């Protein structure tokens, strides 16, 4: 089997693979940079929680309309927004911190979602929704993913300074601009939109993988934010492409394979990146000044 047969032919021969590739690349470009900003705010687990929170909404969409993309997406988006607002309310009006309230919210949401789907759909439906199905990306799905990625990149370009300041020194931003809290909500809405867009390819359980793993690895490579954002997107693109190929040849679900590929890049980063194990060892070995 030539390299062409292995690495290019699946996309040249099959429309569904081309669609899946386009969708994965669009997702990678939009969601990995968002992931970097999430890790900077020490909100890595919030992405995870939101990804699970989307599930009951998807399930309700599924109950009402079957495997219809607009219904599943809309349901997922609404559920995500409810959890964002709910967690904000809980952390503001009770003694629970934000991470605890997110954790509680997503566990409940996950349980409700799995129950809803398993009581009204088949095992296969549940598997597709939880772990993704590249066969499932149709034209509408592609438009949704591309639209979300475009909006995300545009919003990041326009609101970059606000997102940056909101993570770095939120008190300063809020003292100068009354809209500080608005940026936080817009940011979390973008996260939810990306997770919803990701679930057809990645599944709701795996959607957050393409967002967080490249982001975490990218922070090990660069000291400055712009480089980290680019690196995260690049790693997500590589993982998405490699993951689709492996998933195709080995006949495995696409979501977990793509996340495994991100995981492999993460392992490499941990070992060899400047801020990883080897970089730290080299710095420790330097003679004191």
């Amino acid at each position: 089997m030539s390299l062409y047969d292995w690495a290019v032919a699946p996309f040249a021969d099959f429309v569904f693979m081309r669609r899946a590739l386009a969708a994965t690349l669009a997702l990678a470009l939009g969601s990995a940079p968002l992931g970097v900003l999430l890790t900077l705010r020490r909100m890595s687990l919030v992405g995870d929680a939101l990804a699970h929170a989307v599930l009951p909404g998807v399930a309700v969409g599924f109950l009402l309309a079957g495997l219809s993309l607009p219904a599943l997406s809309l349901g997922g988006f609404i559920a995500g927004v409810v959890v964002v607002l709910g967690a904000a309310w809980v952390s503001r009006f009770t003694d629970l911190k934000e991470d605890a309230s997110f954790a509680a919210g997503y566990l409940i949401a996950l349980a409700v979602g799995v129950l809803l789907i398993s009581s009204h759909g088949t095992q296969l439906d549940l598997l597709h929704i939880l772990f993704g199905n590249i066969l499932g990306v149709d034209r509408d799905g592609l438009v949704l993913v591309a639209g979300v990625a475009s909006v995300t990149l545009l919003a990041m370009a326009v609101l970059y300074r606000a997102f940056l300041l909101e993570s770095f020194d939120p008190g300063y931003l809020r003292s100068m601009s009354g809209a500080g809290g608005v940026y936080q909500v817009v940011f979390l809405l973008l996260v939810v939109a990306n997770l919803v867009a990701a679930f057809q390819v990645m599944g709701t359980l795996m959607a957050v993988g393409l967002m967080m793993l490249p982001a975490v690895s990218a922070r090990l490579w660069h000291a400055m934010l712009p480089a980290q954002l680019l690196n995260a997107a690049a790693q997500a693109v590589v993982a998405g492409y490699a993951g689709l190929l492996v998933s195709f040849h080995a006949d495995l679900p696409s979501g977990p394979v793509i996340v495994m590929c991100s995981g492999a890049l993460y392992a490499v980063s941990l070992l060899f990146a400047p801020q990883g194990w080897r970089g730290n060892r080299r710095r420790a070995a330097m003679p004191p000044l």
Partner: protein
Amino acid sequence: MTGLRLIPTREAAPAVQLDGVGVAYRGRTVLRDVTGGFAAGSLTAVVGPNGAGKSTLLKAIADLVPLAAGRVTRALPRHAMAYLAQQSSIERGFPLSVLDCVCLGFWPAARIWHRVSRAQREAACDALAAVGLGDVLDRPVGTLSAGQFQRMLFVRVQLQDARFILLDEPFNAVDAATTEALLRTVADWHAEGRTVVAVLHDHAQVRQWFPQTLLLAHAPVAWGPTAEVLCDENLRHVGQLADAWHDRAA
């Protein structure tokens, strides 16, 4: 009452006026009955025991916490105020260069989408060079020492060109030489007619550099010229108040 009465010039309109301000966190009152004004161009230290509501007072002035009672009247628009939080509330390891960080001070001028102009960038470089940070412009902020970090944040306040400056424990974890340099900067701001309010702990420092003092123990104990406020009697009274407060909380 036939002759003209001269209005004393010192009674200028306050830059910020507080009327019966109270703030509560989760049902516990942190600040109450704060009434008074910060005159335009005044330089005031806020002192008091730990947990006396000093930081909360600054946040109330900067409109960062909801008020449980009273009101704050500001003579200036929001972007004419600079608020410098305690270092602990700022993400020190953020992947941001020193130059980019101080350029955030141009927010009121550049707003959210305008680019920072070449002239602004040069002004930022000059201001950093003036405080001895000229050769770390491109370094990540996380590589700075605590003293350098605070000098950088002071440059950011300076570039913001704010008329009203709030500093929350600005000299914590900062060495003596840097503290001295930063205090000179504060004195310069005062000389330029800016209003400055700083939360501080070191009474000697306050006596030397700050003409006005607000002594706070949840409510103002004394507010006025530093020499009168920081007398033994007031300080003893504050100590007793703080003890009583903690006993009640326990």
